[in-house]
C-alpha cells in the first residue's frame, strides 16, 4: 500500500475519533447549558412571583383593609396577584405558566391537577424537599417545571383559611363556605409551579451543535487536504524522484540524474547521501575498469 494511503487511513481514523469525541462532549455541554438556562429562567420567574406576593401583602393589602369590610377584593390575596401578573405575561408568551396549585383551594381555578397533586404530595411527605425540577410533555412541546412548596407559615393565613366562622364574611360571600378551609399551621397545602418551554433553548443548543460540528468537519477536511498536498509535495514526489534515479543507477545508468537537493531537511540529507554514494560508486566502477 502506498505511503499516502497509509497516511490518509491513519489520519482519517484520528479525525473520525476526534470528531466523535468532540461531538459527544460538545453535545452534552450544550444540552446541559440549555437546561441550566431553562432552570435559571424558571427560578427567575419563581422569584418574580414571590416578589409579587410580598408586594401585595405588604403594600397593597394594607391600603385596602377598609374596602375589604364591604366587598372581598381578591387583589389583596398574594396568590391571586402573582397568578394575575403571570396571566398578563402569558398573553404574549403563552408557553410559560405559573400556578399556585393547591389541594383545597378557596378559588377553584387553583385546584391542583393530577400531576400537580403528585408534586404537592411529595412536598407533604418530605419536609426536607424544598424544590423539585422535572420535565413533561405538553401539547406545545417539552416543558420544564420548577416547583416549591406552599406552606402555612404565618398565622395570618389562618384568618381566611382555618374556619368559616373566623373568615372574613365578604370572602365567604364571594367564594362560599365549601372550599379553602381547614388549613393548619405549617401544613404544606400546595405548590408554586413555574412551567418554562424547553423548545427554544434546546433548539438553539442543537443549532449551535450543528454549526460547531460542521465547522469542525470543514476544518478537518481542509487539514486533510492540506496535509495530503504537503505530503505529496514535500515527501512523496521527492522520494519518488530519488527512487527513480537510484533505480536507474542500479541498472548501470550512471548518468540517470542528479541527487542534489536545495533543502536541508531529511529528504535533502538523503539526497546528499545518495549523491555521495553515487559518486563513490562511479569511482569504484572506474577503478575496477
Amino acid at each position, binding site marked *: 500500500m502506498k505511503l499516502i494511503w497509509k497516511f490518509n487511513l491513519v489520519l482519517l481514523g484520528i479525525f473520525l475519533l476526534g470528531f466523535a469525541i468532540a461531538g459527544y462532549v460538545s453535545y452534552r455541554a450544550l444540552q446541559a447549558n440549555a437546561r441550566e438556562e431553562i432552570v435559571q429562567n424558571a427560578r427567575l420567574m419563581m422569584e418574580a412571583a414571590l416578589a409579587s406576593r410580598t408586594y401585595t401583602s405588604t403594600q397593597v393589602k394594607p391600603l385596602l*383593609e*377598609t*374596602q375589604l*369590610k*364591604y*366587598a372581598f377584593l381578591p387583589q389583596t390575596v398574594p396568590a391571586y396577584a402573582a397568578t394575575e401578573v403571570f396571566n398578563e405575561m402569558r398573553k404574549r408568551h403563552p408557553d410559560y405558566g405559573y400556578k399556585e396549585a393547591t389541594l383545597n383551594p378557596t378559588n377553584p381555578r387553583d385546584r391542583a391537577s393530577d400531576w400537580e397533586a403528585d408534586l404537592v404530595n411529595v412536598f407533604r411527605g418530605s419536609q426536607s424537599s424544598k424544590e423539585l425540577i422535572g420535565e413533561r410533555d405538553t401539547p406545545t412541546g417539552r416543558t420544564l417545571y420548577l416547583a416549591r412548596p406552599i406552606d402555612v407559615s404565618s398565622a395570618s393565613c389562618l384568618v381566611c383559611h382555618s374556619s368559616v366562622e373566623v373568615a372574613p*364574611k*365578604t370572602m365567604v*360571600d364571594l367564594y362560599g363556605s365549601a372550599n379553602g378551609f381547614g388549613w393548619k399551621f405549617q401544613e404544606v397545602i400546595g405548590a408554586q409551579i413555574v412551567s418554562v418551554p424547553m423548545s427554544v433553548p434546546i433548539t438553539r443548543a442543537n443549532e449551535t451543535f450543528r454549526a460547531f460540528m460542521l465547522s469542525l468537519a470543514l476544518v478537518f477536511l481542509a487539514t486533510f487536504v492540506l496535509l495530503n498536498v504537503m505530503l505529496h509535495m514535500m515527501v512523496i514526489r521527492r522520494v519518488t524522484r530519488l527512487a527513480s534515479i537510484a533505480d536507474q543507477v542500479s541498472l548501470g545508468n550512471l548518468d540517470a540524474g542528479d541527487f542534489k537537493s536545495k533543502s536541508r531537511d531529511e529528504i535533502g540529507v538523503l539526497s546528499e547521501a545518495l549523491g555521495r554514494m553515487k559518486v563513490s560508486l562511479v569511482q569504484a566502477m572506474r577503478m575496477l575498469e
Partner: protein
Amino acid sequence: MVETSRSIVAFLLLLFAASAAAAEAGIYTIVDGDVRVLRDTAWFRLAPGARARHGDIVDAGNEYAQVQLEWTGGGIMNLQGPALVHTGAVVPADNKSGAAELVVQRGWIKVAAGKRPMRLRLPNATLDFVDAIVVVRGDAERSELFVESGSAKFIPVVARGKAQTTLDAKSGEYLERSGDRAAVAQPRPPQAFVTALPRQFRDALPALAAHFAEEPELVRGREITLAEAEAWLAPGASRRTFVRRFTPRLSDPAFRTGVNARITAYPEWDRILHPEKYRPKETVPGK
C-alpha cells in the same frame, strides 16, 4: 352698683355666647361639586378650608357633590349628595361632655367618631355611638345603618307613649327601618346597599385638616326660602330652635306670604304675624 354689675355679667355672658356660637367646630376639608352651607338664614357657597360653625346646615346638592368635615375635637364626617345635614351642637367650647349631634334629613353619610360620643338623628331613627365608624343612608322614609367598626345603638323614633326598643349593632352588622315599621337587623349589608355605597366610603376617611391653615372667604348667596326651611320646621326635637332661627325671615314678604298660607302649621309665628289674635279681650265693667 348692682345694676352695673348685672349689666357687666349680662354683657360677658353675651360675649361668651357669641364667641361660643362663632367658635370653630371644625374644618370642611373636602368640598366637591354643588355644596352650600346655611349660616343663620343665608346660604353661602362652601369652599375647602372653611371653618364649620355651630348650627351649619350643609346642603350637598346632587350626586356629584361631596363634603368632608373634620371636627376640632376629633372625628370625621363625609357626605355624599344629594344630602342635607344640620351639624347641630358640635361646639367644643360648650359641649365637652355631651354628644355631638348631626341631624340628617337625607343622604349618604359616613362618620368616623373619636372618643366623643356622637348622635345622628334621622327622620325615623336615632343613632348613638362612640369610637366607631358608621355608614348611614337616610331619607324621609327609610334609615339604613352599617357599622364598619365599633358598635352603635339604633333607636327607632316612635310616637309618644309607645315603647322604644334600642337595638345594638356590632361591627359588620346592618340595620334598616322603613317608615314606622320594626327595625330589621342583618349580619351583613345587602348587596344593593354595598353597590350603591359611594366609592369613597369604602376607604378610610383621610385626615386633611393640616392642609388648611387659612380660612377662605365664603361667597354669600340668597336667603333661605320657606320651602327650604320647611324640612327643619317639621315637628321634632329641633323645631323650636329653627323657629327661633328663621323668625327674621318673616320680614321677607314672600316668606311671610308662604307662612300665612299655612299659618296653622306655624303657631309660633301666628303670634308674631297676627298679634291682634292674642291680645287679651277688653272687658266692659258691669256688663
